[in-house]
Each structure stands twice: as C-alpha cells, then as structure tokens.
C-alpha cells in the first residue's frame, strides 16, 4: 500500500512540476541554508582550532594597553613613551620569577616583505627573525638540509630557512639545488645576504585564508636567527607585545592572569597611563567559537523561519490539492478506500514533496558549503549525520504539515465529495 501511495504521489507531483517545485522552494531554501550554516560554521571552528594548534596552545601574548581612567573610560591618555614598553629587563625578571612555568619568550619579528628576483624568476617573501622558541613553535617540517642550530642563533649567523614554495619559484622545485644558495635581500636600503641551510614545507594555508588569489603568489616565510636581524637593524630593547610560551602542563588560565598581574604590580604600579594585559590562544579560540556559534544560531533561526514558511506552503498547497481532487476522493471512497488509506495517501504526498525539497536543498547546501569553504581554503566535509538528519527532518515536516489537510480529506463524506463541483 505504501509503495502504491508513493507511486500515486510521484505521478501526481510529476503532473504539476512547477507547482511541486514552488511548493518545495521554502523547504529547499531553508534546508540548504541549514546545511551551509553547519558546514561553514564547522569549518570556521575547525579553522580556529587549527590555528590554535599551529600557533600553539601553550602560547600567551602580553601586550601594553591603556590603564582605564578613574571613571572607567579609555582613549584619552597621552601618547606612547619608550618607557611604557615591555623592556628586556622586565622580560628577564619575569622569566626568572615564573621559572618552571614559563619556558621562554617566542620572538618572531617580520623584518620586511619583498620580492626576490633572480634573472627572470621571482618569489614573494616575508623575512622573519626568530629565536629558538619561536622556531620551535612554527613546527616546521624540514624537506631538505638542516634546521637553524643553537649555535647559529647564538652567533647571529646569516643562515636562512626557505619554504618549498620559494624553491618552486626560483629553483624549479629542486630542494637540493637550493641548499647553499644565497638569499639576497634589501632592508632599509641596506643589502643583506643569507645562506640557505634548509627547505621546509609551507603550511597548507599560510594564514591567508579568504584572500582568494593563488596561494603560490602569496609571500612565503623566510626564517633567519632573530639576533642576526637585530644586529642588522640595531636591535630591539623594548616591545609593545611579546609572546610567552608556557612549559608543558602549566595552567594557561592561571598564567594568563598571574603574569600580567605580577608585571603590573612590579613594573607598572607607578605608570600613569599604561599597563600590560595578556590573552592566550585558547581563550581567543573559545571567543571565536562562541562568536561563530552565535552567528550560527542567528542564521539557524532565520533558516527555521524559512522552513516554517515552507511548511505552511506545503500545507496550503495540500489543501488546494485536496479541494481540487474532492471528486477523486469521493470516487476512491466509493471504491472502498477507508478514511485511513485516504489519509495515508495525502500524507505520503506531502512527505514526498518535502523529501524532494529536502534532497534538492541538501544537495544545494552541500555544494554551496563546499564552494564557500574551499574559497576560504579550509578543508571541510559536511557531516553525514547532518545530511541524514535534514532528510529525516524534511520527511517529518511532510507528516506534520500534511496531516491536517490529509485528515480533512479522510473525513470527507463520500457522497458530498462525489457530488462536489
């Protein structure tokens, strides 16, 4: 009987394709938005988690910020002074005080972004001075050659790690050929030369998600010892912000609160305008996930309204169908259809419309979600349970919104239905 109802429903719907499509449109739009929201939201959360993974869950950042004034307002203080910054001396004392909890400072300073040309080949690069801890944080995968060594760091040698993308551009992808070659780079009108000691694998997204263009044309990082770049540029004695790396197993929440507290008590007590604060990657990611989830929820609400409107549309069209087919209902009853079989017939029809809308909507949603996330350059997949859930949901929608009209049909008096003009 179910199979028959299903066939009847299909032929009925096939007979008025445009109407079926328009009926299902609300469901299609609603469900495709749900899928898109799920996919993109998950992708964004994954991205946040991934960036936490790559930037380090045990990293926290100290930065100088304005002290809130007595009335709690901000933005009306004097300009920066050199003495407001975090000095090397403060850093040393802090590391000393939190020994065993903080591993060290991660120094990564971008010296310049430029284009390196050799003959008719060129590669965009970003030159970064890093210390040992920062380099460790990068978690580079070495493809050829050696890493920058502790002694390179200590002796401020002019050695460099370049990415495979750099090698692709300048040495036709031959890693070995690149080793020992020189990177010639101009910083502040001065000419510097670094020797390539290693080639590392550039991460999938170089932090340039969403910027569209071809990743090969984005600047790739060149890493050199930070002491070398400091020596070249005259060196930094104080910072607006620094990244600290906690020892494994340290309580990040506590450190993020205690370290700035101690620094403020010790060094900024007498500062009239500035103080330090800290945030860690984890709380940043949490904040980001919270935000994504809030946005997700808002869009879900809109999708839900669209679905509701779609469902009411289905109900409406079912009422029209039943009115149009009153004589048919009368005939079926005369031929022996029970109230229940009439009810089932029309519920099946509503379910089939909703299911078709569901299939189209889910397909569109998956396709659009895939398109958006691949544009964002975030690897993604739509959860199977989400898809199945949406399809089941659309079917239950058919039952929900088909029931009332179907019941109306079932309760028709046979002779009234047959006499209907």
């Amino acid at each position, binding site marked *: *009987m179910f199979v*028959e109802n299903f066939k*009847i429903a299909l*032929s*009925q719907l096939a*007979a008025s394709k445009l109407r079926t499509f328009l009926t299902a449109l609300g469901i299609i739009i609603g469900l495709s938005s749900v899928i898109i929201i799920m996919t993109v939201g998950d992708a964004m959360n994954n991205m946040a988690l991934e960036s936490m993974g790559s930037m380090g869950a045990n990293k926290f950042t100290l930065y100088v910020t304005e002290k809130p004034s007595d009335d709690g307002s901000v933005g009306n203080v004097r300009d920066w002074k050199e003495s407001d910054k975090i000095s090397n001396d403060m850093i040393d004392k802090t590391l000393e005080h939190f020994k065993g909890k903080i591993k060290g400072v991660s120094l990564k300073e971008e010296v310049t972004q430029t284009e390196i040309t050799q003959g008719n080949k060129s590669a965009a690069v970003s030159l970064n001075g890093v210390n040992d801890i920062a380099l460790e944080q990068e978690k580079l995968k070495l493809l050829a050659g050696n890493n920058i060594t502790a002694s390179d760091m200590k002796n401020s040698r002019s050695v460099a790690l370049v990415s495979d993308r750099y090698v692709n551009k300048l040495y036709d992808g031959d890693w070995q050929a690149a080793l020992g070659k020189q990177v010639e780079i101009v910083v502040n009108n001065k000419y510097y030369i670094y020797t390539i000691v290693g080639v590392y694998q550039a991460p999938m997204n170089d932090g340039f998600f969403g910027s569209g263009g071809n990743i090969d044309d984005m600047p790739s990082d060149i890493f050199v010892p930070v002491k070398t770049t400091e020596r070249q540029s005259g060196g930094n004695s104080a910072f607006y912000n620094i990244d600290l790396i906690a020892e494994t197993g340290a309580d990040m929440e506590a450190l993020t609160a205690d370290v700035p507290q101690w620094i403020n008590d010790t060094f900024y007590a007498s500062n009239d305008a500035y103080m330090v604060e800290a945030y860690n990657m984890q709380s940043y990611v949490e904040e980001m996930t919270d935000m994504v989830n809030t946005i997700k929820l808002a869009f879900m609400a809109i999708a839900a309204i669209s679905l509701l409107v779609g469902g009411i549309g289905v109900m409406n069209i079912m009422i029209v169908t039943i009115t149009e087919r009153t*004589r*048919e209902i*009368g*005939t*079926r*009853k*005369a*031929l*022996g*259809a*029970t*109230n*229940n*079989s009439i009810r089932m017939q029309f519920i099946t029809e509503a379910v089939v419309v909703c299911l078709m809308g569901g299939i189209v909507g889910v397909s569109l949603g998956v396709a659009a979600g895939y398109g958006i996330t691949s544009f964002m350059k975030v690897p993604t997949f739509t959860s199977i349970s989400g898809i199945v859930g949406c399809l089941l949901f659309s079917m239950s929608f058919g039952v929900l919104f088909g029931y009332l009209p179907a019941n109306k049909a079932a309760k028709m*008096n*046979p*002779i009234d239905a*047959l006499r209907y003009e």
Partner: protein
Amino acid sequence: MDENKVMIDARGVIKKFNIGKENELEILHGIDIRIMEGEFVSIVGTSGSGKSTLMNIIGLLDKPTEGSYILDDIDAIAAKDNELSHIRNRKIGFVFQNYNLIPRATSLNNVELPMLYAGVGLRERRARALELLEMVGMAERADHKPDELSGGQKQRVAIARALANDPSIILADEPTGALDSVTGQMIMDLFRKLNLERGITIVLITHSNELAEETDRILTLKDGNIIGERRGTGAQENVC
C-alpha cells in the same frame, strides 16, 4: 442461485437535507424497496424525483435520515465508516453517469484500484484487471488515461472497475446518460450479460424508457415516493 434471497431491503427510508436549517428539505418520504438477488431492476422518474438520492443510500454512500436498510443481511444503518468502506469495496460495483475515473491513472490502474483497497497482490491485480478490460473490449486501451478515451470507452473501463472485486450488486446511475443510443445499448447488453452469466444483482437508474423496458422490473419514483412498479420485458426473457 437462491431466487428468493433478498439482497436489498429498505423500509420507510426518509431523507432530509439541511436538517435544522431554514431550508430543510425532505426528499424521500418513506420509501420501501426490496430487491432480490439476481434481479435486474430499473428506477425511472422525472428529474429531481430523488432517484440518485435513493441510489446513494442503497450504495452506502449516504445514510437515510430515518428508516432501516439491510444489505445482503448486513444492517447498513448500524455499520461504522470502515465497515461501510469494506462493504462498498467487496459487494458493490458503482457505475456513474460521469464515469468518475481517476484522472492521470491508466485504464489498468483504474481497474486495479478496488483490488488495491482490498489488499490484492500486484500480480493478481494486474492479471485480473487485464482480464476484465478484455471482457469489456478495452484491453488495447489498458495503458491509456481517461482523457484519451471516448465516453463509451470510459464507461466500459468504469464497468470493468466496478467488477474488479466480483461484487454481488452493480449500482448504475444513468450509466448511458452521456452516450449515444447505440453505445448505450452496448452497455445495456453488457449489464444483461453480467446479470445472466454471473447472477449479479443490478439496479439501474435511467431516463430512457426503452432501456428500462429491457430490465426485469421497473420502479417509478415521483417526488420522493415510489408510485408505480411493473415488470419489464427482461423478466419474460428470463423465464424463457
């Protein structure tokens, strides 16, 4: 066949419409009607005399306002919706003036429909539907939809459908009303054949005196009362 078995036994049937409203109407004023198994009866009368109203009550599509009605030993007044559906499905075959075939369904599907509601399996349903279409000479049109058939062809499909569950009664309300006299006669012959060969009880409403004459018994209805009853030529044929 037991010639003395009563198939339809209605007593004091009153039918009112719009009960309790200003425009309340009494259409049937206490009809007594008795039809034996295997009889071929026609009901005639002027338009608006209540023929269809009576037929709908006989066919369990409507309930009388007052009176009793026993159909093949079943009390139709007491029966519930589902039982009525079941009886219509198994015992009664309807033939309507306007055919009432399901649009968008083929002749075959239309004939299968009563068997579908009776829970007959696909194979058996198909086979029997084809057999019935063959019998009414519509086998070639099995895959045609109603809008591709002539009136006479539609009515033959409708008759095949009425026969699907081997009913004991056929109720035909002006089955030839929309057909020319030759086609009408063909349908009549088909009914007579079914009546003779299968012993199916037939109640026929018609405006054609010639067709009514061919039946066993003719009942005349006027303003909601049966005012006359006489034997038709069919009765003599039967005796021969």
